[in-house]
């Protein structure tokens, strides 16, 4: 038996190493399955919870066109949630169980959504920075080893880049607008810059799962690599907009052909991860309320479907 399992695991790793996709019916190590379920459901939850900060401005968008674009964007996030829950379901997880884990606090979602949206410029900043960071995290996942996840990510990434452009466009409009608008954009950047850098996760030294995930090709870059890439990408864009990145230590490093930048406030990072973010309670409560208050609707839909089935029989 042991020999056989080792062989299966070896075969599995060989497929991964050759970049052959793993599909739902293929054999896979339990740890791989569990890691994937955790990661995909976390990602799905992030889409779901991620609807809230932007949803907060739909009713207050400053023009009918912007309202329309924003609502469509948040709707896309709901769609992404659906793809991802489906991908996780191919691994044997149920959506109800995943949601129960979200609601109990057992499952996590991206910490960035535990920050509040306080001005219209936050809609620009989230699209530009937060979606920008998400794309950097997610593009490599389009080539991830698990087939359904990789395919879901292809669709997600396509829409995300569209959202990112829209976010940048909001920022551009603000920065080319009146003084108050530019100030609004800068103030939003000040609030979101550091939390966005935290989106890539703890420093590599504090990220114990990275190695295994990279071996399984669930992950393809380390947290710090992606963070560096993000800073190098965003600083010129901020300059283009005429905005100042709120980091005194930010400086071009000719030798590494990249920016040096200040230290992330890891204490804040871990506080937020532990559920002490400015909006952590509100976000989770909003989801729990939606779920609890929707229970009777789901029950009615089930009961009615059952009645139909019985009548048809």
């Amino acid at each position, binding site marked *: 038996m042991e020999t056989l399992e080792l062989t299966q695991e070896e075969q599995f790793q060989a497929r991964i190493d050759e970049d052959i996709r793993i599909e739902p019916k293929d054999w896979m190590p339990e740890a791989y399955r569990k890691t994937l379920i955790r990661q995909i459901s976390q990602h799905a939850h992030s889409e779901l919870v991620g609807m809230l900060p932007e949803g907060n401005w739909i009713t207050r968008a400053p023009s009918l066109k912007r309202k329309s674009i924003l609502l469509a964007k948040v709707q896309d996030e709901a769609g992404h949630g659906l793809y991802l829950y489906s991908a996780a379901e191919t691994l044997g997880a149920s959506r109800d169980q995943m949601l129960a884990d979200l609601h109990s606090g057992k499952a996590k979602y991206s910490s960035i959504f535990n920050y509040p949206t306080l001005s219209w410029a936050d809609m620009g900043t989230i699209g530009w920075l937060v979606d920008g960071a998400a794309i950097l995290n997610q593009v490599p996942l389009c080539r991830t080893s698990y087939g359904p996840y990789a395919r879901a990510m292809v669709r997600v990434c396509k829409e995300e880049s569209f959202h990112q452009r829209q976010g940048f466009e909001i920022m551009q409009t603000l920065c080319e607008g009146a003084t108050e608008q530019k100030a609004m954009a800068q103030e939003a950047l000040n609030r979101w810059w550091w939390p966005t850098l935290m989106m890539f996760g703890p420093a590599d030294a504090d990220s114990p799962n990275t190695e295994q995930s990279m071996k399984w090709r669930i992950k393809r870059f380390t947290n710090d690599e992606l963070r560096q890439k993000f800073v190098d990408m965003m600083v010129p864009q901020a300059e283009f907009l005429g905005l100042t990145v709120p980091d005194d230590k930010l400086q071009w490093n000719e030798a590494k052909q990249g920016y040096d930048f200040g230290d992330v406030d890891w204490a804040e990072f871990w506080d937020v991860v532990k559920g002490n973010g400015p909006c952590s309670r509100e976000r989770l409560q909003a989801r729990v309320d939606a779920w609890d208050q929707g229970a009777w*609707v789901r029950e009615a839909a089930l009961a009615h479907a059952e009645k139909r089935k019985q009548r048809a029989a």
Partner: protein
Amino acid sequence: RQQLFEYVLQLADTSLILAHRLSEWCGHGPILEQDLAMANISLDLLGEARSYYQYAAELEGRGRTEDDLAYLRNAVEYRNVLLAEQPNGDFAHTIVRQFIYDAFHYHLLLHLQTGPDKQLAAIAEKSVKEAAYHVKWSAEWIIRLGDGTEESRHRVEAAINALWRYSGELTTPSATEQVLQAAGFLPDYAAIQQQIDQHVERVFVEATLPVPQGVFMQKGGKIGRHSEHLGYLLAELQYLQRTYPGLQW
């Protein structure tokens, strides 16, 4: 022309306000798929509202834009029907509000698309396809809730009790609408009412719900006499434009 402007504005306001109410659900729906559906309908109505506002601005010919019309008029200037501004309440209230409106909206657009005003007909032709989907969706939910569990039935009945009194306004022509009807721009609402009644009857029978009878009908939205809800809705909707008038976003 002034009458047509006012009527188109009434259509625009109703679509916008109802879209706004639906968009309040975004992220808080009972089922993720229904979150998507409500956002969809909201987007359709928002698109329709924009078409109407653009046309109204054109009819008015005073250089106002769709955003001026939506963001710079206060509650007593708004012309939406009372139904549209009623709060979401629970999902049953939202569904009942939607179904009452969808049934009217669909049958109205069927008429408008063949009406004499080319531009209104064009908007109606595009929107009627969406409205057909809307009324299908809300009718299905009326049926599920009416013929679902005891609780859902109780809730949908409470919602009907609360909202039916706003259905009459939809087909009660205002002075403006009477002028347009006389001029042949608008259909006779009695005919539409009959089609709506049949549609409602069909759905309610399947939902095992009685069609309300003899309800006292509220009206006033079409002449700017709203409920107190609208002021709060507009304070939110218009806040940024009011705060920074005349800027581009």
